[in-house]
């Protein structure tokens, strides 16, 4: 009886994915404990975040993909409306307008778009015939540009890039022609100077500092330099858990959030980094397998986009911490402290699980 109940409970949970996620989250808690200066408070609060996020993941896993397909459009519309509301009435903090007060709670509508955006585009291309036309990609691009533009204006470069990526992956997986892709790359090359002029000063500075962090070692380049020192001084095997001098002595900024990877790399070294990348590879690999085996256009596009977006998070964050990409304010998925991004991520993995475990229902 109990056994049957348990079986029913985990019916829509993918064992492989779940195992990899749990392993990564356990690593995350260890790093967080060290990065926060051994704060039990932070650890507990993140454990609460994890519990909430895992519950939501379970719920998402139990919702059949068809339901998601149905709510794709309304979710997107609500998301965009909220973004407009943010632009008009949003609360300003740290020089950016990202939050919206709704009664007692504060919400960040850009988070909603992280899921709603690929859902909408997957829904849009699933409704088309298998041979989508140029017009479809153009519509898709416009649907994508609206929220990306709004979020970029907040300004939140990191999130807008990630949402842009998630939409782009749908377009790409839906069969965006290679020629067009090439054309896009070329046109970006041409547009780059124009885009450059549209960026905020601090965003430009970040890119400039990327190429030469020592230009401003105590200002904008400080993050990159200190992170490189942390990683580099970690060596092969690391300085040991709780023993990273860069992290424990406050040299690393934002070390529980965006720069937590530097703490990990300093304390666990090259071997630890490879191990963490392996965990991420397992998660991504499983996501790709789920996408490959998905049976409806909607679910395969969505699964593929979620997985590749997750990868993009990992790459952009680690790339920025290790100094090969600009500092754009993207957290390391599953590892960085904070509830919002964790909930969004695990909701995504819940959808992956749902797609994988509701397959048979689709074919029947």
């Amino acid at each position: 009886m109990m056994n049957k109940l348990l079986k029913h409970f985990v019916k829509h949970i993918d064992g492989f994915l779940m195992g990899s996620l749990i392993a990564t989250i356990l690593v995350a808690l260890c790093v967080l404990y060290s990065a926060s200066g051994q704060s039990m408070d932070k650890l507990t609060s993140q454990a609460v975040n994890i519990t909430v996020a895992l519950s939501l993941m379970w719920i998402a896993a139990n919702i059949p993909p068809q339901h998601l397909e149905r709510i794709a459009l309304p979710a997107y519309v609500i998301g965009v409306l909220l973004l407009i509301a943010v632009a008009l009435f949003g609360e300003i903090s740290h020089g950016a307008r990202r939050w919206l007060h709704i009664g007692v709670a504060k919400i960040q509508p850009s988070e909603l778009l992280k899921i709603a955006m690929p859902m909408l585009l997957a829904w849009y291309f699933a409704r088309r015939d298998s041979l989508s036309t140029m017009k479809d990609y153009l519509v898709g691009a416009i649907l994508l540009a609206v929220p990306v533009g709004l979020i970029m204006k907040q300004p939140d470069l990191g999130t807008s890039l990630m949402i842009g990526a998630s939409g782009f992956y749908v377009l790409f997986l839906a069969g965006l022609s290679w020629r067009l892709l090439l054309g896009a790359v070329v046109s970006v090359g041409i547009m780059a100077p124009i885009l450059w002029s549209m960026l905020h000063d601090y965003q430009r500075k970040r890119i400039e500092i990327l190429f030469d962090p020592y230009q401003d070692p105590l200002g904008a380049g400080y993050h990159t330099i200190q992170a490189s020192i942390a990683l580099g001084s970690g060596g092969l095997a690391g300085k040991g858990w709780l023993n990273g001098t860069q992290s424990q002595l406050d040299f690393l900024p934002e070390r529980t959030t965006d720069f937590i990877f530097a703490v990990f790399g300093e304390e666990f070294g090259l071997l630890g980094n490879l191990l963490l990348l392996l965990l991420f590879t397992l998660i991504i690999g499983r996501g790709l397998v789920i996408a490959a085996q998905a049976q409806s256009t909607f679910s395969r596009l969505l699964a593929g986009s979620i997985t590749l977006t997750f990868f993009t998070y990992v790459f952009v964050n680690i790339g920025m911490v290790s100094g090969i990409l600009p500092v754009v304010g993207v957290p390391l998925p599953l590892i960085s402290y904070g509830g919002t991004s964790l909930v969004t991520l695990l909701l995504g993995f819940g959808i992956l699980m749902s797609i994988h475990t509701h397959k048979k229902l689709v074919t029947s």
Partner: protein
Amino acid sequence: MRSRSELKNYKKEQYDFRIRLATGGLLVLICFGILISRFVFLQFSKYDYFQTMAENNRISLVPIVPNRGLIMDRNGVVLAQNSFVYTLEITPAKVEKSVEETIDELAKLIEITSNDRKRLKKLRSQTHSFESVPIRTHLNEEEAAKIAVHRFRFPGVEIRSRLFRQYPQGELGSHLIGYIGRINDRDLEHLKESGDLSNYKGSDHIGKSGLEQYYESQLHGITGFQQVETDAGGHAVRTLSSTPPVPGNNLILSIDSKLQRIAEEAFGNYRGALVAIEPSTGEVLAYVSKPNFDPNLFVDGIDSESWKELNESLDKPLINRPLRGIYPPGSTFKPFVALAGLEAGKRAPPFSISDPGFFTLPGNTHRYRDWKAGGHGMVDIRKAIAVSCDTFFYGLAVELGIEKLTDFVRHFGFGKPSGIDLKGEMGGLLPTPEWKARRFKQKWFPGETVIVGIGQGYTLVTPMQLAQATAILANNGRAMQPHLVSSIQENKEGRIHPVPLVVSDQIVLNPKNVELIKQGMMDVTLPGGTAARLGADAEYLMASKTGTAQVVGIKQNEKYNESKMAERHLDHALFITYAPAEDPKIAIAVIVENGKHGGSTAGPIARRVMDYYLLGKEPKPTQPAVEPPSAVIEQAPEEHGHDE
């Protein structure tokens, strides 16, 4: 059909999708490959570099400033010490508002005078903005507490408890003790040259004058270092290792502070100098320069008002008179000229002259007058000293010749620094024909030799030289190197290292000749001598010589009228002496600026010093040895600049 084509489409679509997905997978692998190569670069190839960077980040060396050595007199009375004092300090670079605004705010809590502000302004112009500079020193407990409560309002403002140099005796011996002050760019230059700069990391102060300056290397000590782990904010987290500082050594002086005080007080309102030396050792017993100043004013930057007052005063209190005040020796020069004559085989008794009250050079009508109109009658060498007969010495000087005369007296330390342990000593002047040719491009006139015989003309001496010459004479020609520090005490274990006594010269003299000179000097304070009144009630026998040095020249045949002269143009009074005459324990030179007659102004000051030193007799309090000068001030004599 339809379902088949649908199935086919589906298969095709799935195939296309998987190709795309595989491309995505490839992208993942490529990107992760890039990350891995970056990890290898950072954590393997450049490991050593980043390891060093991380260590530099976290470890910093914090200097521990050693305690400065104490200065004590020969009886252990402390003349310079360190005491903990609360200071209110500001680091301009850390202040959010302007420094002026912050200080206005602070002034509402505790008293900050305009002098404090001026001093701060001066200090700020000499320091970097990231250095902490004092706004106020010597905060009391209540003030410190007030600031502490409101500290959060004043970023960059701190209360510090610091060891402060303190001169508990105030003005006593200010010129010999000197003072410390904040290290300035010039000091840094010197430290760099001497290679001591690293030992001054963390030190704010350095000896600027007097013994504080001369014995800087002894007093400062060796700076210790603490290797501390610091966080990004620069706060020390823990100590990794530490090398304790070695405190500076204590100076034990030959000065007797009681004697010093009696000597200083004896001057009353007069300006002048006094040096007392123990002839057998060269130990300086008292070292007076009047007026003096309070060295405590200088420790953390003197405020401009006090500085102006000291620097612009007509009394020139900052001049270290014993070393840098140069005066004509006047008649105090005569015993040494007399000895030169005897050693040259001239003027030995029973030689005597009949003094008409003036001297003329052969073939010249110019009269070199004696101070006593009409002359002293029959004068031999002993009487010549006792009555200070000018005529006798005019002739002697001419007969000796300027070269022979100066060559001889040079042995007594004239014309060159004594080498005492203080900086900035002047050498005085023994004029010679070569010197005059060099200096004025003129030939030497015989008349100039005449007046050198009575210590006038170009001849210039410092009070230090005069005292040393007296001590050498008292010691029968054995010259002991004069010094103020008699021993140095290691602060660590308290071991005392006496400063070795140095015989700087041994003048070969005929004891009979020396005895004759000494007899003459003993007669000075006996009935018939120029200072007979001074010796009338003395319980010991002293050997002395009075002197008067002209400040402005008096023209031929013009009657000297002292009442007409402004006080500053009055003659300087000089007096040299040693006692007891049969076994000299103390040799003294006194100069009282504008004190007129050596016997009546300078002599009583020396007498008081000897009375205390030899008999333990203390003068009645608040009674100067001589009456204060009349307060007519016209113009100060030409003096030499203070080196600050």
